[in-house]
């Protein structure tokens, strides 16, 4: 079962090695480069697009970020999930250090990149990927740095995500409950998939080592405590916690207790697969007239209470690639033709509940068509929106207790927002 990476490569878009770190001396960068440059050339072959590929004894696992490929090579049966996730974490670390991870920033900081590669992985085993803690002992600005006398306790501590001795004048916590609605409606108008993916995004500015406890209107918990809740209690399908949350404790009595990292992090994410009524329903009718023009009629309806308002609504309508001369009218908002995406984007700044808006568009089509019937690109209608002060699931933060031995009083601020996730309606 044991297995580890042999080397890490940072490559440019053509697959050339920018920087690499050899952990085991059993792969060669020349061979990896030769393989990978060829590999990314043949984009058409779907078999060649898998993110895990094997070539003469070596497995290459890679991800892409901006104009950089991050790739791990291994000769063993290593944990692929762990290595690929590690590559994504590596992106986070680099982004924390260099603001943006791209070819140029790697070149500009190659000394730190080498230092980081030495610290986050040893002999191919992932070691430590908390950027904030790393930055306490691997610093970019070499001139300010004196010899660090020891690694931060956090590196090896049970609490590996927070250093001791943090001080704030004003102790505050911001908690954003963000719910993304994913929906897939098929061409018959049936909702075939709908789920809600929620995240509790926290920003903490707290001194010392605060113990936090979070209470939600979690049905399982409330029932276990024998409480009949005043409002709605919700049933979360799957919950994932940041590593700071004590999982065993949660498993025992559903208490969410933790010592938070400093700054921004996702405390938990959850998923509900309950059927939700689509918040914004879009119907499009496409009429083709004698091969010369196409008429699209779109109705968009908001299906939430009057007191809520969606903002920044964007409805992306697919149009044929060969359409020209757009002529668009809307009852609200504005529409812009985006030929580069073969779509018409309808933007509505503010969309109150229980309202219906219309769009009518006409395009010309070339009169000559190919004889051979070819499938048309069938992109779905995609919708983006945000509804502040509202959650679809009805999740509520009942309390957030913060206890620190110095006894300070901390202020928690909670906000709710719902937005569109993967919100797709296939054309009828």
């Amino acid at each position, binding site marked *: *079962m044991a*297995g580890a990476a042999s080397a890490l490569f940072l490559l440019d878009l053509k697959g050339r090695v*920018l920087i690499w770190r050899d*952990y085991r001396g*059993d792969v*060669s960068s020349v061979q990896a480069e030769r393989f990978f440059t060829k590999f990314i050339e043949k984009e058409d072959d*779907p078999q060649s697009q*898998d*993110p*895990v590929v*094997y070539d003469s*004894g070596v497995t290459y696992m*890679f991800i892409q970020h901006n104009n950089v490929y991050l790739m791990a090579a*291994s*000769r063993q*049966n290593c*944990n*692929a*999930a*762990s290595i*690929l*996730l590690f590559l994504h974490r590596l992106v986070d670390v680099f982004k924390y250090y260099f*603001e943006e991870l791209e070819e140029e*920033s790697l070149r*500009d*900081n*190659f*000394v730190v990149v*080498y230092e980081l590669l*030495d610290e986050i992985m*040893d*002999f191919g085993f*992932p070691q*430590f990927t908390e950027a904030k803690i790393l930055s306490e*002992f691997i610093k970019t*600005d070499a001139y300010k740095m004196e010899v*660090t006398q*020891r*690694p931060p306790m956090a*590196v*090896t501590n049970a609490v*590996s995500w927070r250093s001791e001795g943090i001080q704030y004048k004003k102790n505050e916590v911001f908690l954003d409950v963000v719910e993304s609605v994913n929906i*897939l409606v098929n061409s018959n108008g049936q909702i*075939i*998939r709908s789920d809600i*993916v929620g995240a509790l995004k926290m920003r903490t500015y707290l001194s010392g080592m605060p113990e936090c406890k979070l209470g939600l209107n979690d049905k399982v918990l409330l029932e276990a405590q024998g409480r009949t809740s005043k409002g709605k209690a919700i049933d979360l*399908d*799957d919950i*994932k*916690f940041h*590593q700071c949350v004590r999982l*065993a404790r949660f*498993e025992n009595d559903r208490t969410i207790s933790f010592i938070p990292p400093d700054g921004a992090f996702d405390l938990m994410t959850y*998923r509900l*697969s309950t059927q939700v009524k689509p918040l914004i329903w879009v119907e499009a009718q496409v009429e083709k007239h004698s091969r010369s023009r196409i008429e699209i009629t779109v109705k968009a309806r908001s299906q939430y209470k009057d007191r809520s308002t969606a903002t920044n609504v964007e409805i992306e309508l697919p149009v044929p690639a060969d359409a020209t001369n757009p002529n668009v009218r809307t009852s609200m908002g504005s529409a812009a033709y985006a030929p580069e995406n073969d779509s018409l984007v309808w933007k509505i700044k503010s969309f109150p509940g229980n309202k219906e808006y219309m769009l009518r568009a006409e395009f010309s089509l070339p009169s000559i068509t190919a004889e051979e*019937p070819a*499938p048309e*690109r*069938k992109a779905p209608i995609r919708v983006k929106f945000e509804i502040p002060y509202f959650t679809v699931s009805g999740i509520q933060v009942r309390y957030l207790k913060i206890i620190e031995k110095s006894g300070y009083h901390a202020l928690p601020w909670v906000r709710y927002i719902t937005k569109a996730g*993967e919100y797709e309606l296939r054309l009828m």
Partner: protein
Amino acid sequence: MSGHDSKYFSTTKKGEIPELKEELNSQYKDKRKDAVKKVIAAMTVGKDVSSLFTDVVNCMQTENLELKKLVYLYLINYAKSQPDLAILAVNTFVKDSQDPNPLIRALAVRTMGCIRVDKITEYLCDPLQRCLKDDDPYVRKTAAICVAKLFDINAELVEDRGFLDSLKDLISDNNPMVVANAVAALAEIQENSSRPIFEITGHTLSKLLTALNECTEWGQVFILDALSRYKAADAREAENIVERVTPRLQHANCAVVLSAVKMILQQMELITSTDVVRNLCKKMAPPLVTLLSAEPEIQYVALRNINLIVQRRPTILAHEIKVFFCKYNDPIYVKMEKLEIMIKLASDRNIDQVLLEFKEYATEVDVDFVRKAVRAIGRCAIKLERAAERCISVLLELIKIKVNYVVQEAIIVIKDIFRRYPNTYESIIATLCESLDTLDEPEAKASMIWIIGEYAERIDNADELLESFLESFPEEPAQVQLQLLTATVKLFLKKPTEGPQQMIQVVLNNATVETDNPDLRDRAYIYWRLLSTDPEAAKDVVLAEKPVITDDSNQLDPSLLDELLANIATLSSVYHKPPEAFVTRVKTTAQRIEEDDYPNGSEQGYSDATSQVADGAASPPTSSSSSPYTATRQSVPPAAAPAPAPQVPDLLGDLMGIDNSGAIVPADQPAAPSSPPLPVLLPASTGQGLQISAQLTRQDGQIFYSLLFENNTQIPLDGFMIQFNKNTFGLAAAGPLQVPQLQPGTSAMSLLPMVLFQNISAGPPSSLMQIAVKNNQQPVWYFNDKMGVNVLFTEDGRMERGSFLETWRSLPDSNEILKEFPGIVVSNPEATLDRLAASNMFFIAKRKHGNQDVFYFSAKIPRGVPILIELTTAIGNPGVKCAIKTPNPDMAPLFFEAVETLLKA
């Protein structure tokens, strides 16, 4: 926090190296640091700066941590090429490993472990010993990994210096990160050793489960992966373990979740209570579904694993098929995997919705995805009888869209549906015939022709349709020609009228005289002869009822599935292949191969490196791998071969543990009198009077090791035991060796039943088998045997001609390997064929090629690996050319050996 390091990449044109040299020796600190940065920059872009070695190493003694790290990095890169100079760094390393700053102590040990130079390794031991007991956990966690590094370079040193025990002590360390790294190191060492080093006892189990709650996410993965090897004693223990692991399913790190799933699935095998199992399945479903919201690369790994999980436990995700519906923007590799799982989860309950999805996908633009979606509809039809009709109607709708490749793919799957449900859906044939002209892919054409031939009696103009293909007969690919031939014969047998009669003459003529394809010609001749001698017999043969087909594509063999499930989250589970199929990690532990014949030889004997040390002989790593990387490590020439047969007492400890209930063949059972004498493997001169002859044999599908012991000593010998080292096929004894007390001057035969796949060695396949035999009176004897792979050939290796051809074609040409046996003469082909058949090498077909005969054979080794063999020879003349085609071409040398042995016999 952006840096400006890119300036170090710019170079001044005039003699870069001398300039750097000068700067490295500057009296100003800053200048030296800048110079080192320039050197590293040059190294990064691939320039050779190894000539600056001494100058860079001179900068190593510095208070500046950043500079020190750069120099260390330089050393890791160039020490190998400058081993003599690398020694210059040792003093500083040793000094740094005692620095008051734990960062520097750890850095020194970490870096030393990365420098694979023997001279440095020697000096690593003392610092490592200290660091393993360091006060600072950061140093200890680094030292723990360093033990694994050292083991990779020099396993003996690790064992001699007791590092393994120190490492095991770290499992009880109070720091969770140290524990996790110690576990990772031990698991790795265990992987590369055949001796039990890291055994998880109940005690370590509970310690590690506790550490699980406190260590970093990556550490949790190490621990879960290591613990998944643990076999619980009973259902109760399994339940307890599962209870402590389930909270991990809530971890945000997908790798932790997958490793927890692996461990739970392993333990579930032991749990008997259906309630508990059902409950666990219910608990695992949501986390598995959530994995599909992860990054696409992780989704890919998750989907490959879910594919395995639903094969073993279909109920877990039975109600979740919707989450596998493809999103428009999913990368193609995710879509393909989702499709595969949708087919697996399709049932009568959800098929309508699934079909709607497939139909949607079949009209997308990505050709490969579209094809796979059409195939998926066909596979659902074959899987779900009640849904077949709906599947067909979807396929017909798709055909109506008239997109060329959709039509072709649909016809291919409809052919399979016809085979699965004969006489049910033929009414649609007319619709299919409309698309006849658009077919241009061989498989689609062949499928359509098959349909026409099979249902010739129901298609009024079947003869016209077939005739339209006949014109281009010579240009068609072989696949189409073969179908056309068969279909015409079918047509003729069903409608023996004038038109078909003419057609058949054209076809037979084309397929015999005008072609050089042996398969086509052979088939045509058979039909010809059948038709001309007995048309009724021809009917019986050609129009015989065909066996019903099932959809077992992509179903894995249960034992392979077991192995893959034990490897969840790893590459093995992504490839759906056992690790040994792709792990090529080069072992660098000391090896004990003395025969030059097998330079690519297998594992070292018993990994009991101490045995060599016990002799006092220096035993450098004598890796025999062909890898260039290890080759460079063989800087020390092998010393005199270690004395054979040293004492290995603890090996025998294991032997005592062998269960006595295994299949036992009495030792005194006489060997078949006709069998030739066994080859002597341990001559009496080497065995202090004991002579051992042995050979692998196959009887009734079972492999035996046939042994003859001859006691030429002056004393009775008893207490014989045998052990096999890891080998390519994992051959090992199935039971204890049964040999009675041997009086001086007597001998005994023994048939030892063998099992496969017990202790499989990694590395390139080899026929080498290393054996140890002991008795109560003498030292342990080690000897080598060469296994004839032919004993592995299974009784079910016979292939139908059709599948032989299909397999032959499906394998790329790179899988075909040739070898000549110049000395072998085949004078009596019949006898040879019989002999080969007796050894499970089955004759398929024969053809003439000039004055030579070409024979085709099939054989199979366990785990279903087929071997296709082509022998070309001129009867009576020396020289046989052997071509082997197999999915595992790296095993070809072994097969050549086997074929040669069989031909010689």
